[in-house]
């Protein structure tokens, strides 16, 4: 597949509007306005394309847009571009924003038009300082060229776009946490229902879409829904996809491929990861960011990287952050690392998550440091099971237990070795002297 979303990123001056327009940029927006597309037609086109949200949940984008009530009772509709890319292992949106920001801006404009939104925001994570600066420059250029603002190109449509920087919290990537944060409040997810499409930011109907999702909309308009739907493994998993490959592979990075790329191809393919570093074996793969269950080396056989393919393996594609661990990785250390992250990022409103994530981290820390007890393994499982599946307002807790719980289940022997021998089974600390407790 020829690159679609990343077609321009290596070009010199890919950020500027002149280069973007020279490459046919904003053609989709001009097409929609000059051909007199109605918002409904645009939504229909996106529905036909089969585009599913690239942020993690994989919900069909057109269907989501359709949830906006027909009668909004005089309230405005908001579009929020979720650029709070904070799932560990994920760095695809950053690439799009920093290297081809106008593609993102055009995607936002088109999608805002589709949902009759007059005020759109790009919520970008605080750590992406460069991304925010680049996007702000791009938005200013778009205003200067009349692509944004009042009565765009003499049409009746006006749109304002604001870049808003977060303050650095993982939970603000959850759409209702993002909404609270955008409203100037503490970033805490809201109780659902009501869903954002009915009552979101400032109490008005709101759509939150991921950066990559919005970028896809540009190409759906340019080349048609049929073209988009033909890319991908099947009609439920369509379009081009950015994969973030990291870990002990030879060539980590962002790769674009049709949705449904085989996981093994991504790791070993010449166009992608080019195999494991130093020829080591694969031990485990996290296929969808820190929130996804780990897969074992056996499970990565015939694992198409799309929403349904990874789900069939008992994990999820999530943000398509593929983290590869080799045989020298201590799985307890990996789980400890994950649990530390989630302990640090829990917003603290729900009891099980606020109390459970630090507990999980403390127990994993103890096992890794050689102070584990035989009953700790059952304890880990129990803590995990007590945190998830409806115990909390949002799915953060479900994400927090994914790594630890799947590793306990799939690598039980290694945990047992840790507890019994007070040291790692593999890795740099495998031979260290036993810790006396």
């Amino acid at each position: 597949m020829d690159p679609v979303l990343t077609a321009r990123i290596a070009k010199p001056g890919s950020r500027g509007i002149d280069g973007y327009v020279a490459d046919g940029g904003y053609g989709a927006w001009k097409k929609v306005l000059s051909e007199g597309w109605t918002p409904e037609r645009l939504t229909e086109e996106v529905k036909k394309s089969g585009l599913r949200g690239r942020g993690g949940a994989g919900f069909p984008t057109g269907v989501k847009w359709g949830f906006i009530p027909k009668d909004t009772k005089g309230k405005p509709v908001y579009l929020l571009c979720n650029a709070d890319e904070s799932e560990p292992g994920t760095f695809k949106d950053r690439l799009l924003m920093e290297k081809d920001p106008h593609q993102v801006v055009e995607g936002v404009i088109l999608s805002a038009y589709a949902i009759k939104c007059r005020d759109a925001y790009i919520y970008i994570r605080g750590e992406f300082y460069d991304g925010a600066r680049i996007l702000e420059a791009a938005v200013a250029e778009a205003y200067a060229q009349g692509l944004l603002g009042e009565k765009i190109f003499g049409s009746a449509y006006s749109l304002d776009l604001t870049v808003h920087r977060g303050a650095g919290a993982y939970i603000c990537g959850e759409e209702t946490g993002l909404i609270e944060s955008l409203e100037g409040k503490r970033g805490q997810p809201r109780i659902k229902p009501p869903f954002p499409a009915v009552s979101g930011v400032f109490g008005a109907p709101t759509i939150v879409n991921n950066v990559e999702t919005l970028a896809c909309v540009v190409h759906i308009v340019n080349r048609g829904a049929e073209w988009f739907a033909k890319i991908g493994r099947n009609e439920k998993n369509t379009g081009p996809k950015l994969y973030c490959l990291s870990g002990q592979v030879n060539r980590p990075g962002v790769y674009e491929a049709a949705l449904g790329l085989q996981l093994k191809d991504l790791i070993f393919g010449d166009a992608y990861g080019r195999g494991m570093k130093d020829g080591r074996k694969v031990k485990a793969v996290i296929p969808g960011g820190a929130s996804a269950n780990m897969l074992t080396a056996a499970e990565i056989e015939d694992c198409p990287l799309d929403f349904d393919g990874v789900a069939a393996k008992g994990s999820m594609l999530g943000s398509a952050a593929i983290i590869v661990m080799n045989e020298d990785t201590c799985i307890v250390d990996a789980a400890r690392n994950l649990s530390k992250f989630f302990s640090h990022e829990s917003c603290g409103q729900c009891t099980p998550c606020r109390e459970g994530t630090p507990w999980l981290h403390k127990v994993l820390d103890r096992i890794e440091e050689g102070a584990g007890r035989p009953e700790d393994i059952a304890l880990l499982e129990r803590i995990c099971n007590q945190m998830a599946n409806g115990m909390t307002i949002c799915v953060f807790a479900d994400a927090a237990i994914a790594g630890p719980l799947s590793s306990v289940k799939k690598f039980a022997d290694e945990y047992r070795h840790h507890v019994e021998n007070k040291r790692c089974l593999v890795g740099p600390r495998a031979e260290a002297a036993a810790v006396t407790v």
Partner: protein
Amino acid sequence: MSANPEPPKAPAPPPPPAKDTFTVIFDGRPVEVPKNLNLIDAAKLAGVEIPHFCYHPRLSVVGQCRMCLVEIEGMPKIQAACTTPLKDGLSVKTTTEKVRSSRAATMEFLLINHPLDCPICDQAGECTLQDNSFGYGQQLSEYDEAKRQYPTFDRTPIGPNVIADMTRCIQCTRCIRFCQEIAGTSELTFLDRGGRTLVWTHDGGPLANEWSACAADVCPVGALTVRQFRFRSRVWYLQKTPSICPGCNIGCNNSIEARENVVYRFLPRLNPDVNDYWLCDHGRFLSESLNLRDVSKATWREAGAVRDLPVPAAVDRIAAEIRGAIETKGAASIFFLGSAHLSNEENFLLRKLADHLGCPNRDVVVDRGKPRKIKSQKGWITGEEAAPNFRGAREMGLTPGRGGYGLEAVLSGKSAPDVVIAADAEFGAAADDPAAVAALRKAKFLAVAARRSNALTRAADVVLPAASLAEKDGTFTNLQGRAQKFERAFLSKPPVRAHWELLLLLATALGWGDPDWTPAELRARIAEEVPGYGDRPESELDGGRLLKKGDFAWKGAL
């Protein structure tokens, strides 16, 4: 054209009247509940307990504590009851294994970082965490790590009336929501996040709104406690008695919490029409003033010396003075002064006595106080009088009768009674004003009933020892016209008697009334004689329901 004319249409049956209740099925048992209730309250109405911490009926629903977990038919995951909208046919399961284990899980999570030192915690005995732990928790926990500490945020005053201890906090945010949504002052907030979350003031400033102790009231644990009450008494030793706040004329329903004839605190009683779940700090902290007393004997002053004498003898002496004045100068030479601090029954007795003697000179006064505000269910109420019962005293007839005069005439010297009977030495600020006392003292004979000495008692010829609010029964009529009953928390120590007892003694000595009357019987006479008091519903008299700190509902109240 059709030959068959259409048969006349039968009138459509009227649509069934819209139900104002939902049928909710609790563990298989259908119960009709009002539509606007939260599921937790609906369950309570149905006699089903759903344990919870963060839910409070007057505060927004946040669904954070995850204690009220139930199973809802048709939903695969466990649900928080507080955030589940009520609807017709909703089937709720509260006794399944999944519910039991989920609640036990939440309890375990809540307790892993909670200091399990109930014996030295002031909340013990009225702690929702304690109660729910016994009801829904498990004995043992496998938590074996260090407990979370909050150096500098433990046992620290967070305002003039509240001590905060974040090690005990369960992050339910009731106090934060109280300050935002009821007080409207928004002092409190969450700081930090995750396991390090704590509640504190935004800028480190004080939690000092007019209702700050209510933030401690809504706290289900010992994280916020009231400074004045902290470590004064174990709550299970305290006896609750329904009472009325004496602080202003709003007449907030409260309970006197007393032990061994000592008042330890006031707590609000739930009355949606008056004070709802709240009390202002001013009224709340009047509680301990009820314990103050330096008049505990009847005294009489003769030839410059002050002597003790038994109360009946003192009353007889007053009666003799009154009879003497009537014989020499007539009943118009007497002045009866009631009090906005005394009950309707007492002011009624005083007026009846004056009527009996044919004396038109009677009055009651009230001081303007700092306006006090309280948020009822229907909105803010402002009380501007510094006494609870001016309206009631007036309605009992304590205004100058035909040809009579009031306090103003006496104080200005326009009228000079021979005998002044002040039923309450603390009738107002004038009682401590030397000029006013001197004016009253111009009478040949001055008798007062008192609990605390002041300029007036020091000037009086006879002082009778009178009971405090906690030591007697009665009713106050608040600014809304609501006659609300307060009850006796404990008996006064002899020879101290309630004002109504003293007045009744005097009345019978002067040939009116029955010495066996009780406040209830006096109330019945008021109902017969005083316009507007005939058909007061019992619910209005009784007022709100008792509450305990931390919880919003006691004895199944909503």
